[in-house]
C-alpha cells in the first residue's frame, strides 16, 4: 500500500519533469537553431535544412554580420547600428519610465476628479495599432521640426510608451498607502519632493518592469525606426531588415542568424538578468 503510493508519486514526479523538459525543448529549439545556423555556411544550409549541426564551425557569419556586411555601400555590418539603437532606446526608455512614474503618481496618489477617466484613456493608448499612428506622427514631427532626428524618435517612443508605463506605475502606486503622502504633506514636502524622496525610492520593482518592457519594445521596434530616421542614424532593426528578404535576393541564413543573435543580445541579456525582477514587479503592478 505504502509502496504503491510512493511509486505512483515517483511516476508522477517523472512525468512532471518530462513535461517541463519537453516545453524547455520547445522554447529552446528556435534559439539553438539560430545559434547553430550562425556557424553554418550558406551552401550547407540551403543544401540540407535550417536544422542541422554545423559540419564545421565557421565564424565568418559572425564577423560579417558584426563588422563587414555591406549596407548601402558602407561595409560595417550592424555594429554602428547597435550603437544607434542604444542612443534611441536608452533615453526613450528612461524618459518614458520617469514620466510614466510621474503620471502614475499623479493619477493614483493625488486623486482628483476625472483621474480615472484620464487613466482609462491613457491605458487605451496601449491598444492603438502602430500603423494607425504613423502619419499623425509624421505631421506632429514636422510641426515640432523634429523630422528625421533622433530626438523625434525618442519623442515618439516616450509618448507612446507612456501608455504602458503609466498603466504599470499607476497600478503599482495604488497600493502605496495614502498615509505616506499625508505624512509627507504634514512634513511640508511638495509635489515633486514627495515624488522624488518618497515615491521613487519605493518604485524599483515597477521601474524595473517598465524599463525592461520599454527597452525591449523600443529596441525591437522597426516601423518607426525606419520611417523617422535617416542614413547612418538608423536603428539596428533597419539593418536587420537589410538582410532579410528582398525580391531580388536569396536569403543569407547564416549571416541573418548571426545578426539576429547580435541584435537580440541586449534584450536577451536584459531578460536573463532582469527576468526575476521583471516578473516580481509585474505582479505587484498588474494585479488590479
Amino acid at each position: 500500500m505504502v509502496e504503491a503510493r510512493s511509486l505512483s508519486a515517483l511516476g508522477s514526479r517523472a512525468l512532471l519533469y518530462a513535461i517541463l523538459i519537453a516545453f524547455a525543448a520547445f522554447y529552446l529549439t528556435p534559439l539553438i537553431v539560430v545559434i547553430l545556423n550562425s556557424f553554418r555556411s550558406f551552401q550547407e544550409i540551403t543544401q540540407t535544412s535550417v536544422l542541422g549541426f554545423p559540419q564545421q564551425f565557421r565564424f565568418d557569419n559572425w564577423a560579417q554580420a558584426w563588422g563587414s556586411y555591406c549596407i548601402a555601400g558602407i561595409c560595417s555590418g550592424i555594429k554602428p547600428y547597435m550603437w544607434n539603437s542604444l542612443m534611441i532606446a536608452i533615453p526613450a526608455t528612461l524618459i518614458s519610465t520617469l514620466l510614466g512614474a510621474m503620471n502614475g503618481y499623479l493619477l493614483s496618489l493625488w486623486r482628483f476628479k476625472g483621474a480615472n477617466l484620464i487613466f482609462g484613456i491613457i491605458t487605451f493608448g496601449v491598444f492603438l495599432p502602430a500603423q494607425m499612428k504613423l502619419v499623425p506622427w509624421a505631421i506632429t514631427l514636422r510641426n515640432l521640426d523634429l523630422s528625421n532626428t533622433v530626438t523625434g524618435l525618442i519623442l515618439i517612443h516616450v509618448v507612446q510608451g507612456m501608455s504602458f508605463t503609466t498603466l504599470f506605475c499607476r497600478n503599482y502606486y495604488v497600493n502605496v498607502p495614502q498615509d505616506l503622502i499625508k505624512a509627507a504633506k504634514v512634513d511640508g514636502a511638495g509635489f515633486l519632493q514627495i515624488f522624488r524622496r518618497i515615491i521613487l525610492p519605493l518604485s524599483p520593482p515597477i521601474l524595473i518592469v517598465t524599463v525592461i518592457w520599454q527597452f525591449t519594445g523600443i529596441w525591437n521596434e522597426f516601423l518607426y525606426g525606419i520611417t523617422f530616421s535617416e542614413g547612418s542614424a538608423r536603428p539596428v532593426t533597419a539593418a536587420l531588415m537589410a538582410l532579410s528578404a528582398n525580391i531580388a535576393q536569396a536569403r543569407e541564413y547564416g549571416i541573418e542568424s548571426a545578426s539576429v543573435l547580435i541584435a537580440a543580445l541586449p534584450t536577451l541579456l536584459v531578460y536573463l538578468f532582469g527576468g526575476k525582477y521583471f516578473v516580481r514587479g509585474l505582479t505587484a503592478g498588474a494585479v488590479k
Partner: protein
Amino acid sequence: MSETAITMPGQARPARPVPRRSWLSEIPDLLTRIVAGVIATAAVGYVVGFTLWTVLISFTDSTLLPEYNFVGFKHYWQLLNSRIWQVAYLNLTIYGLGFILGATGVGLLLAILIDQKIRGENVLRTIYLYPMALSFVVTGTVWAWLLNPTIGVEQFVRGLGWTQFKFGWLVDRDLAIYCVVIAAIWQASGFAMALFLAGLRSLDGDLYKAAAIDGASPARMYLRIMVPAIWPIVVSVLVILLQTAIKTYDLVRALTAGGPGIATTLPTNVVYDYMFQRGLMGAGSAAAVMLLLSLLIVLLPYAIFQRLRRGKGGGHG
C-alpha cells in the same frame, strides 16, 4: 476669532515665529504640478488626438496623404463587403482565440508544474521567458524557417530517414493560421507563466492546507481554488495578450506574409496594406477604426466588470 489670539505659545514653549512662508516659495511646487499636468495631458491628447484624427480621416477619400474630402461611410461599407477584410476578421478570431487561450493555457500549465517545488526552477523560468526578449519579426522569421517544409523540420526529419514525414501546415491555407498561433504562443506563453506563477506564490499558504484537508486532487485544487483565486492576474494576462493579439502585425509579415494567398492576413495587415501599400489612407483608417471598435466590444464589458467588482467593495485587488 480676532487679532487678539495670535499664537500665544503654550506655557512651556518659547515664542516662535508664525511659520507662514511667502507665496513665492510655493511657485516651484505649483510649477511642477503644472508640468505634471501637462505631461498627463500630453499622454491623453496623444491617444484622443490620434484616435479622433484617424476617425476623421476614415471618412475622407485620402489616398497617399491626408486630405479632407468627406465621403461618409463609404470606406466602411466597402471594407465590410470586401473579401480580404472578412478573411482577416475571421483570421483574427481564430488567431486571437487560439493565441490567447493557448498562451494562457500553456502558461498556466507551466506555472502549476513549476509550482510543485521542482529543481532548476530558475533555469526553466528563464528558458520559458526568454522569447519575450525577441521581436515578432525575429520570432516570425525563425519559425518560418522551422515550419517551412523545404528547409525546416519536415526536411530535417526526412533527412533522419523518415522520408515520408510531412509537416506542411505553413503552406496549407487552412492550417497556416495555426502556425502563426504556435509562433505567438511560443513567444508569449512564458510571460503568462511568469505572471501566473507569481500569483500562485502570493496566495495564502493556508489555502493549500485547507484544500489538502478537504481532500482535493491537485487538478481540482488548481482549477477550482487556486486559479479562481488569482483571477485578477488571469484577467490582466488576458488583457495584455488581447492587446498583443490585436496589434500583431510583424509576426504575420515575417512568418507567412499573409499567405498562402490571403489565408493568414490579419486586420492590422489590412490596415497597413491599405494605408501604405495601396496608398488608400481613408480606407486604411476606416479599417483601423473598425479594429478599435471591435476592441471596444471586448474591453467595455471588462471595464464594466472591473467597475462592478470595485463597487462591490471586494477590498483590495
